[in-house]
């Protein structure tokens, strides 16, 4: 194998797996036929190949390659309720760090005021996760919509009403809507189970549980701990690998769930914008909506695969 062929193979290796399997050798042939006496790929050719690979990855990501999205939704219906519980870690951490005196020593009997205001919503989501596990799609769907409504009602339940919670938890709200929609309109967790399989689901569930425990038990306030942040990134990475690596459908499903949660965190932490501003809230929700729509893809008819007729 010449150095030129090795270079081309490295570039072709950047293409999506299904494309490589179908067109990899063929592309190499075309590239070598056109290379003439060059010892290395030219700059324009390299850029063109990189751009082509990026386009195909993006096309698969936004489901613009004509593949059905129903299975992606089914994957979300199974994994989504479980993944949602990652958001409960904050409330659990708050509950743990609240002093016992605060919880038990109130003189006016208003103990509930010391509980995190979003705790009831997370309890609903826990029930939804159990229902989804038992493949009770419709009941889980009702619970998911209730859980999402619970998020929206947090500013009203909070003793100090503030819409700050909604801004900080924009990801949970949007992910809640995505999961509720998946449970309502997809083939459901039963189909998701067929796609994911028991072993992968168990691994995914284990990683989610570990992440929740890590967050909940972190010293001090969970979001101030660098160690917790690094640990959570690693855990999310493993979760993505466990939940999403089985296929492109799984990858999309996990991405669909992950992006709404990750983006607000990135926005709030890196840009250091005052989260109280309504502009940020509108930006978060707007951006998340666009991303979720982009990942899910707009509804479209499934075209027959021309390759099937060949």
């Amino acid at each position, binding site marked *: 194998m010449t150095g030129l062929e090795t270079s081309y193979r490295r570039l072709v290796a950047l293409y999506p797996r299904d*494309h490589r399997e179908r*067109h990899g*050798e*063929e*592309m*190499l*042939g*075309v*590239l*070598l*036929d*056109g290379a003439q006496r060059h010892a290395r790929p030219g700059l*324009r*050719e390299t850029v*063109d*190949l*990189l*751009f*082509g*690979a990026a*386009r*195909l990855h993006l*096309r698969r990501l936004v489901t613009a*390659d*004509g593949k059905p999205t129903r299975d992606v939704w089914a994957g979300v219906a199974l994994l989504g309720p479980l993944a949602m519980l990652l958001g409960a870690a904050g409330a659990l951490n708050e509950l743990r760090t609240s002093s016992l005196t605060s919880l038990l020593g109130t003189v006016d009997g208003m103990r509930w005021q010391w509980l995190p205001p979003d705790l009831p919503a997370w309890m609903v989501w826990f029930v939804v996760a159990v229902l989804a596990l038992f493949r009770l799609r419709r009941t889980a769907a009702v619970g998911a919509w209730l859980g999402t409504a619970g998020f929206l009602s947090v500013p009203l339940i909070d003793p100090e009403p503030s819409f700050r919670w909604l801004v900080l938890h924009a990801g949970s709200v949007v992910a809640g809507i995505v999961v509720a929609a998946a449970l309502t309109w997809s083939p459901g967790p039963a189909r998701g189970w067929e796609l994911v399989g028991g072993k992968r689901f168990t691994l995914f569930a284990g990683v989610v549980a570990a992440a929740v425990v890590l967050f909940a038990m972190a010293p001090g306030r969970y979001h101030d701990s660098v160690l917790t942040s690094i640990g959570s990134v690693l855990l999310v990475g493993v979760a993505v690998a466990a939940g999403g690596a089985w296929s492109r459908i799984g990858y999309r499903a996990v991405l669909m769930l992950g992006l709404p949660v990750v983006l607000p965190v990135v926005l709030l932490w890196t840009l250091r914008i005052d989260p109280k501003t309504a502009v940020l809230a509108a930006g978060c929700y707007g951006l998340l909506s666009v991303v979720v729509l982009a990942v899910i893809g707009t509804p479209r008819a499934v*075209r*027959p695969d*021309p*390759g099937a*007729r*060949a």
Partner: protein
Amino acid sequence: MSNAPLREPTFLILTALAARPQHGYGIQHDVEEISGGQVTLRAGTLYAALDRLRVDGWVDVDREEVVDGRLRRYYRLTEPGAARLAAEVERLRAHTRAAHNRLRTRLTGGTA
């Protein structure tokens, strides 16, 4: 079927396949010839376009050959692809006709 104007590489690839099936390298050469040397279709662009055209059902695999140990896959234009190309040709022809008429009016000093 979308009636949006075809992008130039798409138009040229469909045109290259209109007369006969061709393999990737053949399409590249034909596109260069059709465009009078103005368009060089590189492999990355070509296969991204073929990927989309196959999904759209406008292009299909015709046959495969192994030449000098390398796989050659021939592509052909499907009926929907041919219909889409014909529609695009008609659209371009109408635009060209309108432009031609207006230029002629301008040259003869008439009013539009």
